[in-house]
């Protein structure tokens, strides 16, 4: 569904992605793990279109989308829950969700919002409050729920566990795993390699702008090099 080949990207004169090859098949949960600064977030930004690409190609459902502007990619079925949540802090929880479905004006918007409230009941409770006042965990739930309101075929999740208490981390990972049953394909970027690999089908390991290893998540978890470098075991 998503095919990335030889992808390069730079910030000014400094290249941070040195030719990434990665693919995601329909219905999979694929994770990209790696240390801080490896280029994981840049990779997701290239896919969502908020970071310019300097070389290579991104294909989504066999269409090249490398130069499609960000605001048009969501219409093709790619939505992103960005790093740092990036919710609309001055708007209410409900407005945030409604804007997640900005492209849609049909009855399904209401239904999707009810589904989001089912998934995260705390958001229903706080629906009329300003999103900036939510706790970190609630903001993360809102960011994921907002991305789901855009009816993704492919959901890009950037560090959903960052800065959250361990119990919330588990809750977020459970939600991500359940997305499979909703037929949403997930590309999950995480520093929490263990948690991410546990719920993923396949994984890629990224180091300083290159993919250094890839394979079934279960194999990666068992690999001694990964265990030493990322899992702290």
């Amino acid at each position, binding site marked *: 569904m998503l095919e990335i080949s030889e992808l390069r990207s730079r910030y000014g004169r400094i290249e941070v992605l040195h030719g990434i090859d990665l693919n995601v098949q329909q219905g999979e949960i694929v994770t990209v793990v790696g240390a801080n600064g490896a280029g994981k977030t840049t990779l997701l930004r290239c896919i969502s279109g*908020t970071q310019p690409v300097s070389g290579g190609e991104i294909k989504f459902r066999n269409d090249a989308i490398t130069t499609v502007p960000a*605001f048009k990619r*969501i219409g093709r079925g790619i*939505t992103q829950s960005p790093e740092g949540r990036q919710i609309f802090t001055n708007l209410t929880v409900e*407005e945030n969700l*409604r804007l997640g*479905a*900005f492209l849609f004006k049909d009855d399904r918007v209401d239904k999707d919002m009810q589904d989001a409230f089912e998934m995260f009941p705390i958001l229903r409770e706080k629906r009329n409050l300003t999103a*900036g*006042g939510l706790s970190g965990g609630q903001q993360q739930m809102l960011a994921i729920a907002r991305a789901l309101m855009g009816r993704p075929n492919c959901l890009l999740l950037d560090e959903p566990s960052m800065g959250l208490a361990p119990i919330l981390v588990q809750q977020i990972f459970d939600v991500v795993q359940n997305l499979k049953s909703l037929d949403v394909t997930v590309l999950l970027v995480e520093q929490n390699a263990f948690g991410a690999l546990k719920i993923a089908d396949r994984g890629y390991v990224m180091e300083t702008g290159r993919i250094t290893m890839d394979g079934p998540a279960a194999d990666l978890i068992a690999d001694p090099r990964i265990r030493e470098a990322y899992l702290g075991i």
Partner: protein
Amino acid sequence: MSELLQFLFSGLTVGAVYALVALGFTIIYNASDVVNFAQGEFVMLGGMLTVFAYAAGLPLILAAIVAIIVTAAVGVALNKLAIEPARGAPVVSLIIITIGASIFLRGVAQVLFGKQIHRFPSFSGDTPFRIGGATILPQSLWVIAGGLAVFYALYLFFTKTLTGKAVLATSNNRLAAQLVGINTNWVMTLSFALSAGIGALAGVLVTPITNTSYDVGIALALKGFAAAMLGGMGNPKGALVGGILLGIIEAMTAGYLSSQYKDAAAFVVILLVLFIMPQGLFGAKQTERV
């Protein structure tokens, strides 16, 4: 008593104009955090273009519509030619660009329209209404009605429509706005068009009372800015209340102190607001957890 009422009427009239200018500020500020100091020039263009379209033989209402549309187009051009190319620059730089644009527009107006004072007739005659010993011009009622109508329309736009929410979302978080599918460049274009159109409407409404010339924009922009600050930048309700309050303060200063201090009132208000309550009367409370 009738004196007080008279000051109140003139305060309401000027205040409605300030409110319209402040509402214009509100839209662009909401979309981009930029305070557009060329807002006063939009008011000038609205009045001036109406003068010339009317002189060219168009009926007044048509002349006004043409003026508003052309001014809106000028607003769009300002965004496309001056603001959009500087995207990514700090807000302060963008604000300075708008000051430059205002000087440019004023210069062009001086060349095109000359330095004379221009006017066109009132919409519904010049026979004042008498209320409680004071008088009010029919045109003043047009100005006040215009201010209220624009406020209400904007209030509905920002609270009830998805497009209005998209404007708010764009200013709140441009990156996230793009991620949910909002074309943020289009939002900016829309904001400048709306803002310029509202400014032009103010010019159309007030010119029969105050007349117009190429340089009326500076004072209007500064006072509209004071009004927006007083009410709380970015809030339509604040713009309306701030504008009318400022108009009344000014009229009372002129009436009871001296008309020479009239213009000082706006600047005293700006200073007081900045010292005492920088958020203004209705400014958003900043609560944010990270």
